[in-house]
């Protein structure tokens, strides 16, 4: 993360102290959001999401594989995230950084813990063959709040994913050339990310807000208002009140966010 000049830091802190922001938004207001789906013909599901200048692409590819021994009748989700060096001058090529791993895992937990993908319908033959969905996030432009952009992108891509029909013929898996089925999804989810600046919790932070913030909180909420994932980040603590405030606001905001899907 880049160092922020002291003057920018003070300016942002003063603004937020007065419930204002650099770009004129309210503290609880998102930047413009746009979602495009089916942007990659060769992927079974895909989406491109922009939140302000932040831009991510996700592609979903299925692959037949073996189930985990303890869940022989469930499909498998694998979420991977590449913070491409193209997206930010401080991102470096190479194996995923700690930040990139955390991003992928927080996004993944939202999907996984809300149980919105009906994994039992991804079983082809119990104990032997299940669909594995590879969810690959490509971060291409980082202007802050990658978490919410990624979760929206994955959600949008999952909703439009079509898998080939696979059947067992003579003990071998046969994959249909043209018959597909919609990935079964039973809920919707969004992630609302806050940062703490001074003593205020600010939603959908820009890059410079992120860099002056003392702490971060991601709240994953389903369309019906259930909390399914949370993660605190950052160098400083949060109070219980900060957290309860953010959770409460996230429940409201999620309803707005999922309307973009």
């Amino acid at each position, binding site marked *: 993360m880049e160092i922020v000049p002291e003057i920018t830091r003070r300016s942002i802190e003063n603004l937020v102290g007065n419930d204002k922001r650099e770009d004129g938004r309210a503290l609880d207001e998102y930047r413009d959001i746009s979602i495009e789906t089916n942007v990659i013909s060769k992927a079974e599901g895909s989406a491109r999401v922009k939140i302000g200048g932040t831009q991510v692409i996700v592609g979903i590819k299925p692959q037949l594989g073996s189930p985990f021994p303890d869940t022989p009748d469930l499909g498998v989700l694998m979420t991977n995230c590449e913070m491409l060096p193209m997206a930010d001058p401080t991102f470096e090529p190479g194996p995923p950084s700690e930040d990139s791993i*955390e991003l992928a895992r927080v996004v993944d937990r939202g999907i996984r813990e809300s149980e919105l993908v009906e994994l039992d319908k991804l079983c082809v033959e119990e104990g032997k063959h299940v669909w594995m969905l590879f969810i690959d996030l490509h971060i291409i432009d980082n202007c802050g709040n990658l978490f919410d952009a990624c979760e929206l992108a994955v959600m949008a891509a999952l909703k439009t994913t079509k898998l080939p029909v696979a059947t067992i013929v003579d003990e071998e898996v046969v994959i249909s050339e043209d018959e597909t089925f919609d990935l079964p999804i039973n809920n919707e989810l969004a992630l609302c990310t806050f940062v703490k600046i001074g003593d205020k919790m600010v939603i959908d932070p820009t890059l410079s807000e992120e860099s002056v913030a003392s702490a971060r909180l991601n709240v994953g909420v389903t369309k019906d208002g259930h909390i399914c994932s949370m993660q605190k980040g950052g160098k400083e603590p949060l109070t219980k009140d900060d957290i309860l405030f953010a959770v409460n606001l996230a429940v409201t905001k999620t309803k707005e966010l999922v309307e973009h899907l």
Partner: protein
Amino acid sequence: MSDIIRDDGRKFDELRPIKIEAGVLERADGSAYLEVGGNKILVAVYGPRESYIRRLLEPNTGVIRCRYNMAPFSVDDRKRPGPDRRSSEISKITADALRPALMLENYPRSMIDIYIEVIEAEGGTRCAGITAASVALVDAGIPMKDIVVGCAAGKVYDEIVLDLSEKEDKEGQADVPIAMMPRTGEITLLQSDGDLTEEEFAKAIDLAMEGCRKVNEIQKEALMKKYSIE
């Protein structure tokens, strides 16, 4: 709150048996050993010291680095040695959880290394690691604003309960591990996995904070025992 009795006979707000010992290693600057339920955790602290990795040093402040690691034999199916994505994430948030208690600005160009080894795992290792790490930091003589302590609450059979066992974690509906600084009640680690209503979440965080306070007493006892004997 209900008065259900859990699988292992505990009440909803009851911790698993917990044991902490400070100063268990010779070479490390500070160390601690912790058992809670079936978990066995060993922590060593080195520092503040100059780092051999120069690019990690910062001119105006000390730096803390955590390594959370599970022994290959700590789990039912052998784990391949070395870091994986889960342990990288836990290492990162553990460092975030402990940092607020340290006065790192007093150690420019220095590094504090915290090595957390999970010798045996039975649910709740990340909180146990933080709890043990704080004791090891004190044992290393590193001044702290407060003794950070970790504990989880969760939801099992629709009840909010304290300190989930491995079995409860698997069968349960949600897990909310936190870490806090007991003096101010500030939260330095928070995760939540699973399904909770807003009300349930509020209940869980209260219960986890209560758990942290209990565990903090055991931390203090361990330190008293170590330093009154000597």
